[in-house]
């Protein structure tokens, strides 16, 4: 522990749980002073590997997180966890219940678990999730596990935050596989088919494998995804395989019986080695920086625009009423404001 006179930055870097927890709260609540602290932490990061877990509600993300914590603790690594649950759009309240599955680690000083509510943010995470990960990293955590909300199929933000994304699915969900096809396929670095104690696990594995095979065939024909284009540009290669193509492994797990967890953790580890070998870890960090920067920029510009709007054009509520009454045109108003900025 650090002494009495220590700054918040020093306390967080020394692993002070209370200082870190309060900073996370202040960041979540948008307290201006917390930004300055974050800026200092940001300038000298830790070394954490960030692993994301996404997939539909009830698939077992929290249970898998619990078992992954156990795995890493056994290997002597410290672990941070961020678990995001949805805020009710009607009441603004939320029930954050992911800790229920992680009780084994409640008293382990090497584990810090934080629950966050989406607070109206879309995309699978909350606005403050990335900041909370930065705080955990500054505390010196070796591994940070991020559990997304798991509602809907547009949970793409985790790609920008995590080094490795684990997509969790379960057997016997025809529609689920459709959903995976629709968007999740692109974001998965590793697939976990959890609840493999249930019937149909092999079938799900086969379905996923088929989709991956299909993707690889189209990739060689030129229909490449973002990452492989990056890789090929960098290595000057014509062949995505040669350029360090990553074939997402599919791992069967039973989180509640601790089965398949070593295989899952090893698949994540292989992906980490792949990231280091191909230089893609850097690329991902640049992508995260870009996303963070754009989010901040968008907020700033929007805030500036709204202030300007209020000062020079009219109050938002009043303008909205005029637009609703069709006495004003939203495009014209937006153009007018944009010209002034």
């Amino acid at each position, binding site marked *: 522990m650090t002494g009495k006179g220590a700054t918040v930055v020093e306390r967080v870097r020394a692993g002070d749980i209370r200082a870190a927890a*309060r*900073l996370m*709260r202040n960041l979540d*609540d948008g307290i201006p002073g917390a930004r300055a602290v974050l800026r200092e932490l940001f300038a000298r990061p830790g070394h954490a590997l960030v692993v994301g877990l996404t997939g539909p509600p009830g698939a077992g993300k929290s249970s898998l997180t619990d078992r992954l914590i156990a795995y890493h603790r056994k290997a002597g690594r410290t672990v941070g966890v961020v678990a995001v649950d949805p805020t*009710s759009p009607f*009441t603004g309240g939320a029930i954050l219940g992911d800790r*229920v599955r992680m009780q084994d680690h409640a*008293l382990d000083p090497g584990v810090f*678990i934080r629950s966050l509510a989406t607070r109206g943010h879309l995309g699978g995470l909350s606005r403050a999730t990335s900041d909370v990960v930065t705080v955990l990293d500054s505390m010196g955590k070796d591994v940070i596990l991020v559990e997304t909300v798991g509602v809907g199929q547009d949970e793409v933000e985790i790609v920008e935050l995590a080094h490795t994304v684990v997509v969790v699915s379960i057997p016997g969900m025809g529609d689920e596989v459709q959903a995976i096809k629709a968007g999740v396929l692109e974001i998965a670095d590793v697939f976990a088919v959890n609840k493999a104690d249930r019937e149909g696990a092999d079938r799900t594995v086969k379905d996923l494998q088929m989709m991956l095979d299909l993707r690889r065939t189209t990739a060689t024909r030129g229909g490449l995804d973002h990452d492989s284009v990056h890789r090929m540009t960098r290595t000057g290669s014509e062949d995505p395989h040669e350029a360090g193509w990553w074939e997402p492994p599919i791992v069967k797990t039973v989180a509640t019986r601790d089965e398949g967890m070593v295989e899952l953790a090893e698949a994540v580890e292989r992906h980490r080695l792949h990231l280091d070998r191909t230089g893609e870890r850097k690329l991902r960090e640049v992508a995260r920086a870009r996303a963070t920067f754009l989010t901040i920029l968008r907020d700033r510009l929007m805030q500036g625009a709204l202030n300007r709007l209020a000062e020079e054009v009219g109050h938002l509520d009043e303008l909205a009423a005029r637009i609703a009454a069709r006495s004003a045109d939203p495009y014209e108003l937006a153009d007018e404001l944009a010209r002034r900025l």
Partner: protein
Amino acid sequence: MSQKNERTLRILVAKPGLDGHDRGAKIVARALRDAGFEVIYTGLHQTPEMIAAAAVQEDVDGVGLSIMSGAHLTLFPAVVDALKERGASDVTVFGGGIIPQDDIPKLKESGVSQVFLPGATTQSIVDWIRGNVKPRAEVA
């Protein structure tokens, strides 16, 4: 879009002790969510130490305990003490359960802020929290 510095209350709802059902705790958790609070729910069989550790990590403003086992005279003060030990004595502790009227003064003396008896409505719990649990200071 405007960045109001309005803090959302965070409340940990826990079920300490050995008794095996958490219906009451879940009902309260839902009522608190519907009142606009963020509820951290930790489930059954929590020791006071586990509750305090979670309260600190989650930086909650209050801890609500549901105790049906009759062990309230040991569990409530134990949670208060465990919080103090972790430097979190500013967390408001309240709770409810099957608790004899006579025990309430003893509980309050040990640092429990409010005790709700089985007949209490969820609305009365929400109202009490609104009036008595304040978002914590910016500095830990």
